[in-house]
C-alpha cells in the first residue's frame, strides 16, 4: 500500500469529523501525567506523550463490565449487556499495540470471548511510532516492540508538521478515505520518513543484558532462585504492577443485585494474581500463599507461561509496572539479575 501524508491540520479535521460517527479515545493530559480518555474535541488530544497511566487495553477489556443482566424472578431471564459503540483508538504506542495483539489471541482462541471480541471488532486502532524513549523505565527495544508491522489499522509517524500514515487494513483505508484529506507521499516525504526512523533507533537503549529469545529458558531454569524470596520480602502486594500492565488479563466475576433484590447483573472486573485471595479456595487453602510465589508467578507469566500458551511474550517493555512499583521491583532488574545468577552459576 502506498504511503500517505496527513498534515497536522488535516489530522485535527480528521479527528473532528470522526467524532460525529465514532467514540474517539486517545492520550490526554491528567494531573501531570497522561491517560487514554474518550475525547469530544481534537484539542483534548496530546499525541506526543511519553506513556499513559493505564494502557489502552481498558477500552477493550474495561476495568469493570457487565456480562449479562438477570432477574431472579422466574429463575432469571437473561438479557444481553449494553452494546459498545464503534470506537477509534488514537495514538497507541507500538508496545501497547503488541499487547493488544496478545489479548486478541487470548480472547479469540480456545473458548471465544464475545465480549472482548465484539469490542475489538468495533475498534479501529491508529497507532503512532515512538521517536524517543518514554523514560528510563521503557525497554521496548529489548523486547522487540519498538515498532510494529501489523496489528494497526493506521499507523502514524510524526514528521514535524505532518504525519506519514501507513495503512494496515481495509478498515483503516476506509476511515482515511471517508474522514481525512490526504496526499500521497512524494519523494521528499519518504526521504524524511527514512531519516526520522533512522535517527530514532539509536536513541533507544537495549536494557536487557541478553537477547530476549533467551528469556523463557532463563526463567525456567530459575524457578528456585533465591531472588523470588527477596522480591517477596519487598513486595507490598498492592497489585499496582499488574493493574497498569497492558498484557494482564486476569479477571474476577461477581453478581450484583439491585436493591429490589430481584434484578441484577453479572460483572467481571480486573483482578490480580498479586493479591492474597487470588488463588485461595474454600477451606482457606491458598495455592500461592506467599508474596514470593506470587511474584514468581507474575514474572513467569510475563516471560514464559503466556508465551507457551499464546505464542506472544507477556511483557512488551512499556515500563509501566516499573514506574508504578513503590519498592523498585522492575522487569529489567529481575530479568537481568536472573541472567546474572545463571551466568555466575554455569
Amino acid at each position, binding site marked *: 500500500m502506498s504511503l500517505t501524508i496527513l498534515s497536522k491540520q488535516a489530522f485535527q479535521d480528521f479527528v473532528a469529523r470522526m467524532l460525529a460517527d465514532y467514540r474517539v479515545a486517545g492520550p490526554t493530559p491528567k494531573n501531570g501525567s497522561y491517560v487514554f480518555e474518550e475525547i469530544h474535541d481534537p484539542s483534548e488530544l496530546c499525541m506526543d506523550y511519553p506513556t499513559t497511566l493505564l494502557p489502552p487495553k481498558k477500552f477493550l477489556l474495561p476495568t469493570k463490565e457487565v456480562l449479562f443482566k438477570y432477574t431472579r424472578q422466574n429463575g*432469571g431471564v437473561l438479557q444481553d449487556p449494553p452494546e459498545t459503540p464503534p470506537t477509534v483508538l488514537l495514538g497507541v504506542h507500538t508496545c501497547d499495540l503488541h499487547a493488544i495483539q496478545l489479548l486478541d489471541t487470548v480472547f479469540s482462541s*480456545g*473458548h471465544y470471548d464475545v465480549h472482548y471480541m465484539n469490542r475489538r471488532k468495533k475498534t479501529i486502532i491508529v497507532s503512532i511510532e515512538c521517536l524517543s524513549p518514554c523514560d528510563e523505565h521503557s525497554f521496548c527495544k529489548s523486547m522487540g516492540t519498538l515498532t510494529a508491522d501489523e496489528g494497526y489499522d493506521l499507523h502514524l509517524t510524526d514528521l514535524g508538521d505532518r504525519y506519514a500514515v501507513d495503512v494496515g487494513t481495509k478498515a483503516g483505508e476506509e476511515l482515511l478515505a471517508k474522514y481525512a484529506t490526504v496526499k500521497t507521499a512524494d519523494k521528499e516525504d519518504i526521504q524524511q520518513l527514512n531519516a526520522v526512523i533512522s535517527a530514532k533507533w539509536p536513541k533507544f537503549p537495549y536494557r536487557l543484558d541478553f537477547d530476549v529469545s533467551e528469556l523463557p529458558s532463563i526463567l525456567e531454569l530459575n524457578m528456585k532462585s533465591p531472588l523470588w524470596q527477596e522480591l517477596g520480602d519487598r513486595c507490598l502486594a498492592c497489585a499496582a504492577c499488574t493493574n497498569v500492565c497492558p498484557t494482564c488479563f486476569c479477571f474476577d466475576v461477581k453478581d450484583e*443485585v439491585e436493591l429490589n433484590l430481584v434484578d441484577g447483573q*453479572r460483572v467481571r472486573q480486573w483482578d490480580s*494474581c498479586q493479591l492474597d485471595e487470588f488463588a485461595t479456595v*474454600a477451606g482457606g487453602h491458598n495455592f500461592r500463599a506467599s508474596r514470593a510465589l506470587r511474584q514468581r*508467578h507474575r514474572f513467569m507469566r510475563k516471560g514464559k*507461561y503466556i508465551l507457551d*500458551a499464546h505464542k506472544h511474550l507477556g511483557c512488551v517493555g512499556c515500563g509501566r509496572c516499573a514506574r508504578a512499583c513503590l519498592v523498585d521491583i522492575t522487569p529489567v532488574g529481575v530479568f537481568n539479575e536472573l541472567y546474572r545468577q545463571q551466568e555466575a552459576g554455569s
Partner: protein
Amino acid sequence: MVAIASYPQTQVYPTIEQDIYLPYLAEIADIRPMTALEKVFTIELPKGMSLGHRPGQFMEVSVFGVGEAPISISSSPSRSNGTFELCVRKVGDVTTALHSLKPGDKIGLRGPFGRGFPYENFRGKDILFVPGGLGLAPLRSLINQVLDERALYGRVIILYGARNPGELLFKDELKAWGERDDVELYVTVDRGDETWSGNVGVVTTLFKHISIYPRNTVGITCGPPVMYRFVLMEFFGKGISEGNIYLSLERRMKCGVGKCGHCQINNIYACQSGPVFSYREIKGLEEAL
C-alpha cells in the same frame, strides 16, 4: 515439560459467536440431603438437551444474585439421561444459596467444562480409586461409569476416607458397592464414634489392606490438597507408574474456560487442561501439588 494431551472434549458452545459466560437455565428435580454439609441435587436439563459429559468434568453453577461456582458432575454419563447430579458442600455464598433452594427452582448452568478421565484407556486394567472426603463426588461419576460397563475392566478397588462417620457421602451406594463381589471397598474415618466399627485412620492407612499388580493398575485420587502427597507416596510405594496415576485437582475458578487466570498452575489452566491430570503431566509443575 510434558505436553498435556487433549482427549475428546464435549463441544458445548458450538458456534463461535455464542457467549461462553451466559448460563442456560435448568430445573432442580430433586434434592437429597447427604450429611450435615452436603446435599445431592438432581438437575433436569432443558428439553431435548443432553449433557454429554465425561466423568471428571465440572459445571459452572449459578444462583443469580449470589454468583457462580464450579461443581463436579457426580453422576456418570451412563446414568445421565436428561438429568445429572451434583453433590454440593455448603462452604460459602453460592453453595449456601444452593442449599436453600427447593425442587422446582431454577439454576443457571455452564459447561460441562474441563478434561475428564480418559476411561476408555483404563479398559482392561485394574482401577484403584482413592477418594478423600468430598473427592468422592467427582470420582463417583467415574466409578459408576466403570460399574455400568463392569465387564470391560479388571479389578475395581475403592479406598475411601472421611473425617468422621457423619461425613461419609453416598452411604447407600457405599453399602451397595460393598455388597458386590466385583468391587473391593475399604472405608475409613479419621475419627470414629460410637456408631462406627470400621477402620479408623487417614485414608492412606487402607493401603496396607490391598495387594495389586502395579503394571496393570490405574491409581486415581481426588480430595483435599493436603491429601495428595500422601496418596501419591502410597501409589509409588505400590509400584504404579506415573503415567497410570490420575488426580483431579481443585483450584479457584471464575470463568471455567481458560481466561480468568485463577486456576493457573504454572503455565497451564486447571479448568482447561484439567481438572483431571495424569501425574506424569504435572510432576514437572512446581505449583501442582
